[in-house]
């Protein structure tokens, strides 16, 4: 029964994809129905599965052999323990809600069929990645996730920026993926088995410390690409070129979540390499800090959210690197819900401000033109992101802080506090600006009534989960994630510190953006050099562009040049030499009989002389 439910939740989206592919071109509406209903079935099945399987003692395993060679075998199938189950459910549910939302958002797009086809494919790939039984199979779906995100980011391919962003996303994540692939290959060579259950229980003991470090480093390279860690995060802000539901999906439960999930999945293996853990923690903290700073001055709402995603992912990675997989995973879960909600809301606000992404344009829209529900949800999401009690973001962040404090990682703790402060500041800046009452009169345009449900239901559900979800499931979550939320002295100390930091951030944001007069830059303008660095995006984009332009295209030009001037020239010169030699020899065969006779006579004389003098 549970296996069947699992089949349903995994293949519902895939089935939708296949059906949509084979539907006739003109059946646009039906393809939308198919996608949403199948995704709904998947979400339902996975939720039932969550309740049935959550506290089950043994994980579901279901295996078919896929490829075999002399020394190793690769299987595909399911390995569904509680970790995967939680992730599976959240992916299914969030994806379903986002597809529902897309019905509203993509209403007027002619290429809806393609959109829903790709998004169901995307969801399927992510789900399969999550429940995959084997690291190699994980890699397969990992790549498919990359492909699907490429297709979705470049969905509006008429825009040059969308095309560029799509390629950037694919190539940069692929760069990381190859690290993953190398890691898989090394694992097969070293331990001959890449089953997840084997890797997290026995593989570590068969590997030396150096091998382990290399493998962990390579796997983390993949995570860096997928989960947008320094220095590979630059694709993520650009990925905003895709439709907003896609951003919501990429930034919450799929794509970027895959990286963190992989780290958590392999945590027992990674944990064994302390150097690797330090490295992961460092990179996570660095990316979190850098992207949080980048978000400070950003005006594009979607980009603010994108940077916040980077920052939060870095936060999770840092937590995992510091040693708490549960901290990273729990934050990933809560983050998935409120971040997808925020993105969906950004879609609404962009719509409301006549397709401008700029938050200061949204500020110009009169308050009466903005839906109260949406504003309320925006604040809920923002505060959850900031980590304010009693929202879900608070719980997951508090959990990490608690762990750090408990294990005396004070350095990391202070970095995390800084990030938390910055996050509180920029998210509330965004919320303050967006919810301003503007006077800019624009012609009123209505969102069609029937579709309003498709807009309201998903965000409301996500908002409810953000507010209450953690509390409803608290006992389970506490047990499974071993939350560091005992009501003791450390907890209250920690609670005090973090709440103070968050409130300070919100307060500063209020000072600059909440009152009648407001500045655009806030306090950042007073820090010398910071706005310059932010404008330059820490030179990372410039660096990667140089790698692409000077490095790859330069080498390509060099290759082309050598092809023309060395390889081909050599061949051609051999040819020309033959032709010239031939021309030279044809002089002997010019058709002039007398020349032939001279040659013939000379040869005969030579032969005769040779024969005479030979002996």
């Amino acid at each position: 029964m549970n296996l069947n439910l699992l089949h349903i939740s995994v293949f519902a989206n895939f089935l939708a994809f296949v059906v949509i592919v084979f539907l006739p071109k003109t059946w646009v509406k039906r393809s939308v129905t198919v996608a949403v209903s199948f995704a709904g079935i998947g979400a339902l099945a996975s939720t039932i599965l969550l309740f049935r399987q959550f506290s089950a003692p043994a994980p579901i395993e279901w295996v078919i052999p896929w490829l075999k060679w002399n020394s190793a075998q690769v299987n595909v199938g399911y390995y569904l323990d509680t970790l995967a189950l939680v992730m599976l459910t959240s992916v299914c549910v969030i994806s379903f809600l986002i597809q529902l939302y897309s019905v509203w958002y993509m209403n007027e797009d002619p290429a809806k069929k393609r959109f829903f086809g790709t998004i169901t494919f995307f969801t399927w790939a992510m789900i399969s990645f999550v429940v995959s039984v084997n690291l190699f199979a994980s890699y397969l779906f990992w790549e498919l996730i990359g492909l699907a995100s490429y297709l979705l980011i470049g969905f509006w391919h008429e825009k040059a920026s969308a095309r560029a962003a799509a390629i950037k996303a694919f190539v940069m994540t692929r760069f990381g993926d190859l690290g993953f692939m190398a890691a898989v290959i090394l694992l097969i060579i070293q331990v001959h088995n890449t089953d997840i259950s084997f890797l997290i229980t026995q593989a570590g003991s068969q590997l030396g410390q150096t091998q382990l470090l290399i493998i962990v480093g390579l796997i983390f390279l993949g995570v860096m690409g997928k989960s947008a860690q320094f220095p590979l995060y630059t694709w993520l802000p650009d990925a905003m070129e895709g439709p907003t539901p896609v951003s919501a999906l990429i930034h919450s439960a799929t794509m970027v979540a895959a990286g963190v999930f992989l780290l958590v999945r392999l945590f027992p293996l990674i944990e064994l390499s302390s150097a690797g853990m330090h490295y992961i923690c460092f990179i996570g903290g660095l990316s979190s800090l850098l992207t949080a700073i980048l978000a400070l001055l950003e005006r594009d709402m979607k980009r603010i959210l994108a940077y916040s995603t980077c920052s939060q992912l870095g936060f999770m990675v840092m937590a995992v690197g510091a040693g708490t997989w549960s901290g990273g995973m729990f934050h990933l879960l809560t983050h998935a819900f409120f971040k997808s909600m925020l993105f969906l809301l950004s879609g609404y606000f962009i719509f409301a401000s006549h397709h401008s992404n700029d938050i200061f344009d949204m500020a110009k829209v009169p308050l009466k033109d903005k839906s109260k529900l949406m504003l309320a949800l925006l604040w809920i999401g923002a505060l959850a992101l900031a980590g304010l009690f009693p929202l879900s973001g608070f719980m997951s962040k508090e959990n990490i802080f608690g762990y750090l404090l408990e294990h005396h990682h004070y350095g990391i703790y202070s970095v995390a506090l800084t990030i938390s402060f910055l996050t509180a500041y920029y998210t509330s800046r965004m919320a303050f600006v967006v919810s301003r009452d503007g006077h800019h009169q624009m012609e009123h345009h209505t969102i069609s009534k029937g579709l309003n449900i498709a807009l309201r239901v998903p965000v409301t559900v996500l908002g409810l989960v953000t507010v209450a979800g953690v509390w409803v499931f608290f006992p389970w979550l506490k047990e499974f994630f071993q939350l560091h939320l005992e009501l003791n002295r450390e907890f209250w100390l920690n609670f005090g510190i973090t709440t103070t930091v968050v409130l300070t951030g919100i307060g500063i944001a209020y000072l600059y953006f909440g009152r009648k007069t407001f500045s655009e830059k806030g306090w950042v303008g007073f820090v010398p050099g910071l706005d310059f660095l932010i404008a330059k995006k820490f030179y990372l984009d410039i660096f990667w562009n140089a790698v692409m332009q000077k490095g790859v295209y330069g080498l390509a030009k060099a290759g082309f040049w050598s092809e023309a001037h060395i390889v081909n020239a050599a061949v051609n010169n051999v040819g020309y030499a033959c032709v010239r030699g031939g021309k030279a020899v044809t002089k002997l065969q010019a058709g002039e009989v007398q020349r032939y006779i001279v040659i013939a006579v000379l040869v005969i004389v030579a032969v005769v002389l040779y024969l005479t003098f030979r002996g």
Partner: protein
Amino acid sequence: MPLSIGDLIFVCFVGITFAGAIMAVSLKNIFHNALSLALTLLGTAGIFVFLHCEFLGLMQILIYAGAISIAIIFAVMLSPPLSLKPKKRSVTKVLVSLSVSTLTFVTLAYIFIRTPWPISANADAGDFSATHIGEILISRYAFAFELISIVLLVAILGALVIAHEEPGDRRLDPEISLEDERWAS
């Protein structure tokens, strides 16, 4: 070694032959060449006599000097353009030809002189008579004899056929002509 009368006469004939040969290849006028050829043939006929081949010498005069060279002379005379003076000869060509033929001559002469020819002691004892030639020709060499007859016949017929001018000749092969500048240059 004193020179006998025979020697003098032999040298005379050789001189005639050489002079004719050299003129036959060196004079510019083709008519003069043909006449010089006849002279050479006559000289050669004399040399034949010294080789005890009087019959052959006679034949040489009759057939070669009498018929062949006359045929050439007729050909030259009958088609006027053939007797026109050719252009100046090119020096390089002359030098090349001279050096090639000199080289050939030196080689031949070296071989002829150096080789110990197996000369029979009584070289002049055999039967040189035309009767003997005739006997052998129609016995041992009968087949070759018949063959050469056929060759001659075919040659005569062939010559007739080739030289026979058909009215539509030019039309048949228009592109092979010197006027065509594609290959005249």
